[in-house]
C-alpha cells in the first residue's frame, strides 16, 4: 500500500512529455529493466518459483521426508470433509466480514475529523497513525492478550460499569470481538489514504451545496462519498485481502493452537499447523492455493461491481 489513486483532473496533452526518438526510448527501456532486475530476480526466485512448486505439491501427499506422491485432487476433496477446515473458513470469513467494514468506517470517520484545520493537527494525525505502525508486531499481540485476560484492564474497567464478562481470551464467544478490536485499532494506514483523498475534494463543491441548503449528511452522501469512492474502493480491496491473511496475532494470542474451542482457528493458522505440525505439506499447499483463488475471485467481484458505485473524475456518469 504505497501509492494512492489520484483524483486529479485529466492532464491536458500539453502537460505530457513529448515523445522521444525511438532509439533513445529503447535504451531507456533497457536501463529500466536493468534497474528492475534485482527485484525481478527476487520475484521469480522467491515468489513465482515457490508458488509453482506449491501448486505441484498441492496435488501430492508430501510429508517432507519422502518424495511427494501424486494423489490428484484428493487434498482438495478432503478439505471439504474436514470439519476443522470448515471451522477455519467460518472464523476467517466472519473476521473479514465484520472487521474490515468497521475498520474502514473508523478510518474514514477519524480522517474526516482530522481533515478540518485546527491546532495540534499534526500531533493528532501521528497519534492516530501510530497503532498501525506497531499493531502487527508480536509484542502488541502479547499486550493485547494481557489486556483482555482475566482481571486485565478491559475486564476491570467493564466491571466498574457493572458489566462482568470475565477475561475475553479464554471465552470462545468473546475472542472474535477481541480480534476485530485489534484490527480496528490499526486503522492508521487506510486513514492516511482517506485523508489524502479528502484533501483533493474541491472546497467549492461544499460551498455550493451549502448555498443550496444541504446539511452535513446530505453533503457527505452527495459529495464526499462519490468523490472519495475510488479511495474507498482501494482501501476496501486492500483491507479485505489483508484481513484474509491474519496470522501473527492469531498465532500468539492462541499459543499457536487456534483455541479456545477453535474460535481463533484462522485460515492461515490452520494451514500452518497442517504443514509444520502435522507434516502435511501437500494439504497445506492445497489450502494456500484455495486461498489465492478465493481472494482472486473476491477481487474480481469487487472490480466488476465497482463500476456501479466508484466514480472517477472525468467519467461521463
Amino acid at each position: 500500500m504505497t501509492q494512492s489513486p489520484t483524483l486529479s483532473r485529466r492532464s491536458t496533452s500539453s502537460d505530457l512529455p513529448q515523445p522521444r526518438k525511438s532509439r533513445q526510448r529503447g535504451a531507456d527501456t533497457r536501463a529500466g529493466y536493468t534497474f528492475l532486475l534485482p527485484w525481478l530476480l527476487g520475484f521469480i526466485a522467491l515468489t513465482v518459483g515457490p508458488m509453482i512448486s506449491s501448486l505441484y505439491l498441492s496435488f501430492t501427499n508430501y510429508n517432507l521426508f519422502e518424495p511427494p506422491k501424486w494423489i490428484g485432487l484428493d487434498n482438495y476433496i478432503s478439505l471439504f470433509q474436514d470439519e476443522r477446515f470448515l471451522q477455519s473458513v467460518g472464523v476467517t470469513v466472519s473476521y473479514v466480514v465484520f472487521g474490515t467494514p468497521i475498520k474502514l468506517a473508523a478510518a474514514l470517520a477519524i480522517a474526516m475529523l482530522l481533515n478540518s484545520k485546527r491546532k495540534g493537527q499534526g500531533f493528532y494525525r501521528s497519534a492516530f497513525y501510530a497503532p498501525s505502525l506497531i499493531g502487527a508486531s508480536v509484542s502488541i499481540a502479547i499486550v493485547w492478550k494481557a489486556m483482555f485476560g482475566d482481571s486485565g484492564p478491559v475486564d476491570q474497567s467493564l466491571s466498574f460499569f457493572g458489566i462482568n464478562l470475565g477475561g475475553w481470551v479464554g471465552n470462545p464467544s468473546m475472542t472474535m470481538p477481541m480480534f476485530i478490536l485489534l484490527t480496528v485499532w490499526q486503522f492508521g494506514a487506510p486513514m492516511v489514504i482517506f485523508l489524502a483523498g479528502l484533501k483533493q475534494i474541491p472546497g467549492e463543491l461544499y460551498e455550493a451545496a451549502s448555498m443550496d441548503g444541504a446539511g452535513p449528511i446530505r453533503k457527505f452522501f452527495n459529495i464526499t462519498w462519490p468523490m472519495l469512492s475510488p479511495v474507498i474502493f482501494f482501501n476496501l480491496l486492500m483491507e479485505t485481502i489483508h484481513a484474509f491473511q491474519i496470522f501473527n496475532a492469531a498465532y500468539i494470542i492462541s499459543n499457536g493452537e487456534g483455541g479456545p474451542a477453535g474460535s481463533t482457528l484462522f485460515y492461515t493458522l490452520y494451514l500452518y499447523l497442517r504443514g509444520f505440525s502435522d507434516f502435511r505439506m501437500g494439504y497445506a499447499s492445497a489450502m494456500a492455493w484455495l486461498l489465492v483463488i478465493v481472494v482472486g475471485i473476491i477481487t474480481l467481484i469487487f472490480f466488476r461491481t465497482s463500476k456501479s458505485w466508484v466514480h472517477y473524475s472525468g467519467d461521463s456518469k
Partner: protein
Amino acid sequence: MINRRNFLTTVALGTASAAVLAACGQPSPAQTGSAENPVTINYTWWGNDDRAERTRKAIALFESKNPDIKVNGNFTDFAGYWQKRATEAAGGGLPDVMQWDLSYLRDYGQRNQLLDLSTVKIDTSAFDKSLLPSGQIRGKTYGIPTSTNAFAVYYDPAKLASLGISEPDGSWTYDEYNAFLTEVGTKSGGALFGSSDYTSVWWMFNIWLRQQNIEAFTEDGKLGFSKDDLKEWWNKVADLRGTPAIISEERITQLLPKSAFGSNATASEVTWDNFMAGYLGDSGAKELKLVPVPSDDPDNLGLFLKPSMLMVASAKTKNKDAAARFIDFMVNDPEVGQIFKTSRGVPASKTQRDGTTFEGTDKLVVDYEKSIEKYLKDAPEPPIVGFGTLEASFKRISADLNFGKLDVNGAADAWFKEAEDLIKQNA
C-alpha cells in the same frame, strides 16, 4: 513470524536443497579426528536456559576428555524444535547428534532419518532391560534413553492442610480420586479447584488402558482400543465437569503459558514426575508431593518408566564414531549425571544414576520412582507415526468437551475420525 510468501519460500527452499543435497550425497569415507585436527559434530537439544547451561558444561567436559572431537551445540524451545528438524530432514541436513522425544521417534526412525545405534559402539549394559525397547523400532535401535520419568499425582500439602483435607496415601480408585477433587472444590468454596480435567491427558488415558491390559497401539500401528473405551474414559468425570472439582477450560486458557497447577489455581495435577522443578518454580510452593495415579485394580497401576528423552544420531552423519562416543558419554558418564541431576528425568543408566547425588527436590523424584518400582511394567513401544498430532488433538477435543462444544459421543467420534485419517495418511 510467517506470511504466505515466507511459508512458500521455506517449502521451496526445502525442496530445492533436497535436490541439491541428493545430488552431492555420495558416501564419503568415515572421518576420524586427532587432537591436532579434531572432527566437529553438531548437537542440538530443546530446553530452557538452565538446560543450556548444564548441556554446555557437559559438552566442555566431553571435549576435555576427547580432544579429537569438537561438539558444536545449538538449542531452541520444544515447539520450534520439531519445525526446525522437519525442514532439516527435508534438506538432508539433520545435526549429527540430537536430543529426542519418544513421540517423534517413529516419524523419523521409520522414515530412515535416524542411525541404527546398534551398528555403533554404545555401552547399554547399565540400562534396565525393560527400558531399551522404547528406543527400538522393528529390531533397530534408534534412540538411547538418557533418563526416565513416570506418571504421578502431584499435590500441594499446604493447600490441603489449609482446607482441612487429609493428604492422600496414594492408593485410590477413580471414584476416590473424584471424591477428593470434589472435596477440594467444595471446601474451598470454588476458590481452589481440585485439578484440571485429568481425562484430557493422553498418557493418563494410556495408563488407564494398561490398567485393563489394553495397549493403546497395536504392533502394526493401528489403534488398540475401541471407541467405547474412549467414551467410558471421558465419562469418568462427566459429573465433575463444570463444578469446582475441575477447573474450567476458560480459566486454563487465561493462565497460559503457565499451567493451572503451577499458577496455584488447582490443588493437584496428574503428569510426569520430572516436572517437579518447573512446578516449584512457577507456583512458589514450599513443598509438593507425589503419589501414584488412581487405579480400580490395586495390583495393576498401569505405570511404567518412559524415557523422558532419548539421544539419537542422524542416519546421514559422516562421523558415526564420534557421534556414538558422544552419545555414550551423555548417557553413561557419572559426571554428566552430576551436572543434570533430575532436570532431564532420573538418569536411565545405573552407572550414571549411582554416580549422582540427589538432594532436596531431586531426591523426591528419585524416591517416587523407587516407591513405584514393584508396579512398573515394560515401557510401551514407541507410539505410531504422527503420534504428536494425535496427542495434540486428544487434548484439543477434550477441551471442546469441557467448553460444552461437544458431548462425549461427539468427542469420541471426532477423535476417532482424526486418528483413522492420520493412520491412513501415514500407512
